[in-house]
């Protein structure tokens, strides 16, 4: 009996998944990009996130009980990114640092261009512990509130609020302790071996 209902239910689910995809493609991609640091991996991560989301969409809808599914999507991306980092850490031939090129051919790069302060902020974000960095990405790149971030990270609202507060505080310290570096304007970041932020102060 339930099988006869499947086509209609599936059509509804597909339509709702399409809405979810359209609403959050940019969120997932932004998260992925700031998380992994390059377009190539961000595209793969985004694709894998939506494929996995499609597989488990019905269950997620049932269990969300009407709550927004964005934290669930970002949590999938978060887990996949963790797997990506873990797998790569087992392969020294392809170190993570080689893919950290947040500035390459990127709209943010264009925005940051000539803005040493913003580039130092981005650099500081990269230096944060994973959980703090992710919380800031969710808050400032995706505009998620504490409750959404808590759901995505699997923490309580209170713990998330503390996490974000500490992340901002630590980032401020990092940025204030790293004065403008004229060498960086030359196009190379000696601390990470990644291309520079393209700051052109001259």
């Amino acid at each position: 009996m339930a099988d006869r209902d499947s086509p209609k239910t599936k059509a509804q689910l597909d339509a709702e998944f399409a809405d979810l995809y359209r609403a959050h493609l940019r969120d997932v991609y932004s998260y992925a990009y700031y998380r992994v640091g390059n377009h190539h991996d961000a595209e793969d991560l985004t694709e894998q996130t939506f494929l996995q989301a499609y597989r488990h969409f019905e269950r997620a809808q049932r269990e969300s009980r009407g709550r927004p599914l964005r934290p669930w999507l970002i949590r999938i991306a978060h887990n996949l990114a963790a797997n990506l980092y873990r797998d790569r850490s087992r392969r020294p031939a392809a170190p993570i640092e080689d893919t950290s090129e947040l500035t390459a051919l990127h709209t943010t790069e264009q925005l940051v261009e000539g803005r040493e302060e913003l580039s130092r902020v981005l650099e500081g974000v990269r230096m944060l512990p994973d959980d703090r960095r992710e919380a800031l990405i969710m808050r400032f790149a995706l505009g998620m509130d504490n409750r959404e971030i808590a759901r995505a990270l699997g923490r309580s609202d209170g713990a998330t609020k503390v996490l974000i507060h500490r992340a901002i505080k630590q980032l401020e310290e990092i940025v204030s302790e790293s004065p403008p570096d004229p060498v960086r304007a030359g196009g190379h970041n000696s601390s990470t071996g990644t291309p520079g932020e393209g700051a052109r102060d001259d």
Partner: protein
Amino acid sequence: MTDRVSSFESLLREALAPVEPPAALALRLEGTLTSITEMAADELEAWELGAMRDPRNWARPAAAVVVGSAAAAGLVLLRARRRAQENPPDLLSARSAAERSLRDLSEQTRRLLARRGI
């Protein structure tokens, strides 16, 4: 203090501006999702058609009914034959025993009457 924090958060918001996904990614991803959706629909439809229309899916239940019926009929026949094989000797022996008893009884009656001169 609050202004400084607010200013820093504004800076952070600017640095972490949302990133538009490349158009090629959206095209590729939508194509992949569409094909997966269609494939899943085709599989579902194929399964339904198979279940409802493919006579091969009817063969097993039908065979089960036939075999079951035959087995039941066979069991009845087997029992009937067994009874037929087992019961007649009993009946015959009982009937013959009764006949023998009647013959013995009439024989003894005749002897008794003959002794008394009747």
